[in-house]
């Protein structure tokens, strides 16, 4: 990836964009206008930044509570995301879902929900439906965290997709934490998630997102495999979030994360690393970065303005959509 100037700049732009969006939400959250829980992806942007470059609107995605970046990686509308968090009618879910329930079917983003693990089989079902069409050449992304690997439904689904050879690509973002709980409290020591998963008979791989090229390579390999072979694949990506589990703040003062762990990720932040590398390689200049930033900032401001100026849903909207007609 880093050999390809255009591509790596685009990934940088994508990652930067996600980070700036998430940080803007964090910054403005105290205004108390975004009145719903938000699980931000600051620190975890690089992989979604890559995924965007593989965009195919006929690929589908499902995700969980921490889904902003996944939604954005599917080129879904930023305006509608912000409006959704503001509870506005123009939001991607009409304001009914909030940050934890996002959707944009036109881009193939089929939904994210807030119960850990419970979109995993939804993704498998989408793949099952795809696979019934023998000429299908698409896949479904199933995003999950390390915590979701503790749910029974994950394993039930895994067994099924291997049995039926379904074209789904599991993207496991292992940030070592489930809320405040580190892995060792929830899973046996020395477990390697990707290895555990591979014993179900699915191809797996893993990468540390701070290793930029490797992350790209592993993702790309997995993506192409599923697209071509129409078989399932699971990739574990080591990553780390910078903010608290839920909400706009930094919470490392609470000391639930090991100092070494935090330092490691501070020093190895993928977005910063990418920026530095691109600067060094002269793919990118400081002025270009500034122009990226101002372009993104412009879009962000427009999106927040859009959200702020949008109409809220009304009483009449309350009783809509329970049933499809």
């Amino acid at each position, binding site marked *: 990836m880093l050999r390809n100037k255009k591509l790596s700049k685009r990934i940088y732009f994508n990652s930067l964009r996600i980070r700036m969006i998430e940080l803007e939400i964090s910054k403005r959250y105290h205004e108390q206008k975004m009145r719903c829980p938000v699980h931000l992806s600051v620190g975890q942007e690089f992989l979604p930044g890559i995924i965007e470059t593989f965009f195919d609107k006929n690929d*589908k995605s*499902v995700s969980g509570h921490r889904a902003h970046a996944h939604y954005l990686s599917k080129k879904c509308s930023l305006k509608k995301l912000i409006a959704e968090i503001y509870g506005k009618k123009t*939001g*991607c*879910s*009409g*304001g*009914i*879902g909030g940050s934890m*329930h996002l*959707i*944009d*079917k036109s881009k193939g983003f*089929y*939904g994210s*929900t807030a*119960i850990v693990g*419970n*979109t*995993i*089989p*939804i*993704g*498998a*079902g*989408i*793949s*099952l*439906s*795809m696979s*019934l069409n023998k000429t299908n050449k698409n896949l479904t992304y199933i995003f999950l965290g390390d915590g979701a690997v503790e749910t*029974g*439904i994950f394993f*039930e*689904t895994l*067994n*099924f997709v291997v*049995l039926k050879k379904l074209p789904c690509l599991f993207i496991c973002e292992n940030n070592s934490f489930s809320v405040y709980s580190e892995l060792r409290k929830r899973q046996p020591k020395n477990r390697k998630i990707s290895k555990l998963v591979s014993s179900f008979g699915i191809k797996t791989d893993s990468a540390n997102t701070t290793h930029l090229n490797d992350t790209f390579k592993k993702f790309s390999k997995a993506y192409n495999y599923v697209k071509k072979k129409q078989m399932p694949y699971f990739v574990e990506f080591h990553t780390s979030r910078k903010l608290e589990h839920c909400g706009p703040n930094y919470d490392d003062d609470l000391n639930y994360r090991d100092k070494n762990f935090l330092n490691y990720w501070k020093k190895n932040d993928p977005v910063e690393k990418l920026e530095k590398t691109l600067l060094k390689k002269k793919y990118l200049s400081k002025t270009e970065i500034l122009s990226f930033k101002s372009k993104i900032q412009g879009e962000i401001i427009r999106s927040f303005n859009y959200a702020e100026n949008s109409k809220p*849903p009304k009483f009449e909207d309350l009783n*809509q*959509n*329970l*049933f*499809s*007609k």
Partner: protein
Amino acid sequence: MKNKFTFAEAIKKAIIYSMKKDPKMISYGLGIDDPKGIFGTTTNLHKIFGERRVFDVPTSENALTGIAIGSSIAGSRVLFSHQRFDFSLLSFDQLINNAAKWNYMFGGKTKSPSITIRVVVGKGWGQGPTHSQNFQSLLAHIPGLKVVSPAFPEDAYNLLIDSIFDPNPVIFIEHRWLHGVSGGIKRNKISLGDVHLKQRGKNITILGNSIGLLNVIKVNRFLEKYKIYPEIIDCYSISPINLSKIVKSVKKTKRLLIVDNSNTFCSFSSGVLAELVQMKKINFKSNPVIIGNKNIPSPTSHYISKFFYQDSLSIFKRILKTFGISNYEIPTELKKNKYYHDVPIEKFGPF
């Protein structure tokens, strides 16, 4: 041409009809393609439609419910069958947190999953505490799910087709003892949510569905003698439910008996009763009555399971009591067969 079909055949016909009509529809469930074919309701369907559209599955009820939702929102209508309602508890997260809300929680930007979950209620031959439960009341409480429970082959046929083609998640409840019951079949669209006036009457309204309704019908002909003319309403659609027809009837008859096929506290029947008494001032001539199973788990021993269930006899007695009639004879037809109260017909398997 054959014009009588068992309930099980009616189910199968409905599936065939639906799968032909929608070539993208799929159908799965434990044992769907095995020699018993879910009580004969699915036998050989995999041969007709191929193994890609009709297939057996692992014992993974929760995931398979989610998979049904996913398949449906991607374009494949799904029918998922459970051989016992009891097993579906494992999938309540998917049913309630996802299926019931899918369209609502995304603000209508998608569609509800068009899935039908068939659940079979076991009874008798020692089905016991974990193989004979009916959770209709739990699911009727959940906004966004439709729940139906027919009594007759024709209604089963029509309701199953209409459930499958309803663009929303539907729980389709089949009582195991109905599978062998026969009747004619004609295709008629039933609007889910409706109730059906089965018999016009005068002085008591009786609501029931599924096996409970059959119990009511068995009692029916013994009532005239006591000047009791029941208006019988088949609540084959449990949720949503058309209350206006029921209110109209009760306002006329001023007496009400609701037959529930499960335990009664915080139940479907109490839900309907509570709606009625809130809506209209009805001058009941006697207190409205709910009759259902006991509020305990079902015992296995056939020696006492007979005390557990509502049946024709208990319904008969309860109706007479409502009219203050204490001097009556029990029709021999309603007397319990001492040994075989736990099977619908003499030859009935262990499963």
